[in-house]
């Protein structure tokens, strides 16, 4: 049988689908047009000469530093990086522990009503509204410079992120096993521990690891505002443009982040 059919046998696209397509296409075109407009009217336009002088003043010395890094700062960078990793571990743990109960309080399906989940959801959105660096600046003022401020900033921010993704996971669980536990005479706690928790735990663990990757990168930067870690070591060198030392520090950061990201994503693939 041939699959050739006259074109007039194709059913017309429903108007609702067509309206949706036009809207999405229009929005994408608008964003693209705005971006081009912004770039064209940029003043002063980055000139080739300016790019060149910028590269000569910072880029080139940094690149030269990578070829010939100053190993004298390696012990300092290594210790600061170890501190950074610990900051990220503790900050992530604080976030995960606080986010765990929050997730269930912000999930529509567990509380039985959207209204009851609303305060939890609002709280989590509220936290996510503030950038981490803002918490860090406030906390540095409150606790003095050092890793404590960085850890707390990461912890607070991680609650917002993990609470949100955890509650999404909780909302996505299969209700069938819960029904089975209730049918067998189990109470609410039994449903929670025998159906809900085992369904969500692997994904929770995966998101915690993912957040750890994010926090490690964040912790490397938080030191710029005095919140401890390798960022503090970096900002001092940047102020005096000691490129070979900066390169050494950057190498340490990049290597550790690559190793952690690789290990973490390998573990996460196995979890879910």
């Amino acid at each position, binding site marked *: 049988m041939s699959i050739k059919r006259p074109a007039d046998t194709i059913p017309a696209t429903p108007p609702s689908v067509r309206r949706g397509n036009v809207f999405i296409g229009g929005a994408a075109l608008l964003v693209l047009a705005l971006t081009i407009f912004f770039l064209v009217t940029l003043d002063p336009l980055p000139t080739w000469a300016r790019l060149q002088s910028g590269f000569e003043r910072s880029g080139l010395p940094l690149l030269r530093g990578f070829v010939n890094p100053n190993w004298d700062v390696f012990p300092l960078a290594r210790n600061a990086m170890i501190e950074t990793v610990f900051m990220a571990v503790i900050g992530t743990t604080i976030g995960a522990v606080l986010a765990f109960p929050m997730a269930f309080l912000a999930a529509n399906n567990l509380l039985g009503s959207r209204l009851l989940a609303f305060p939890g959801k609002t709280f989590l959105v509220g936290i996510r509204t503030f950038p981490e660096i803002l918490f860090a600046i406030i906390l540095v003022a409150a606790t003095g410079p050092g890793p404590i401020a960085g850890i707390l900033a990461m912890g607070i921010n991680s609650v917002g992120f993990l609470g949100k993704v955890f509650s999404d996971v909780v909302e996505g669980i299969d209700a069938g096993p819960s*029904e089975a536990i209730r049918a*067998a*005479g189990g109470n609410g706690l039994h449903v929670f521990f025998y159906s809900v928790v085992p369904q969500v735990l692997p994904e929770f663990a995966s998101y915690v690891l993912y957040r750890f990757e994010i926090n490690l990168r964040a912790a490397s930067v938080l030191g710029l505002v005095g919140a401890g870690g390798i960022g503090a070591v970096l900002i001092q060198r940047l102020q005096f443009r000691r490129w070979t030392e900066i390169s050494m520090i950057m190498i340490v950061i990049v290597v550790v982040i690559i190793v952690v990201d690789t290990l973490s994503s390998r573990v996460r693939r196995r979890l879910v």
Partner: protein
Amino acid sequence: MSHITFANVEVTYPGGLKALKGVDLEIPQGQFVVIVGLSGAGKSTLIRTVNSLVVPSAGDVRIGDRSVTRARGGELRRLRSDIGMIFQTFNLVKRSSVLRNVLAGRLGAVQPLRGVLGLFPKADVAFAHECLRRVGIPEKAFARADALSGGQQQRVGIARALAQRPSVMLADEPVASLDPPTSHAVMRDLKRIAREDGITTIVNLHFIDMAREYADRIVGMRDGLIVFDGTADDATDQVFEDIYGRPIDEDRDIRGRT
């Protein structure tokens, strides 16, 4: 005593759908009843009123002389722990071990806190293993549930129900997700165990031939009402055409020949 009595049971869902429109039915202890009917006829709703997963808006369901419909809280949980249930989609926790899934059937019987902490008495753990032996998959106890085939997963579902030592068993389309040979194997297991333990069993089925093969008694439902009640021999093709409201030879699916 575990005979089941439905007295004028009506169910109206929120939104106004009348799923059951006054069902009267007596099921004596130990009987293996198959309920047939099209999707939406009210089979699942009827079966769920037995353990109050669906609460009737009128009427009463009793097991022996105890009303399930009126039971609340701890009393309802005690009644439910005497009623095993297996599901079309198995409803196992896929990421948990088979053993833990089966032990979930003991939750109604052990102290609530021990259950929460997973500290089951040795006798309960041994019994869970025995239930897996009875459904023929003792070697799968420590496998993750999602590593099993569909037929094996449904056997875990049966083992979980058996772990309750139930006197009543409910099976909601237990073989609808399985291929025909596996379906028959699972139905044979279910029937054999119900016979051996004298369990009063209600099974919802789509397939006519399977209903005739395994049922002590066939109950036909249509549009929220019972329209047939008799033995497998009474349930002729003509009867099934009435239940389904259409000629059955047009639609081989509902015969379920293998």
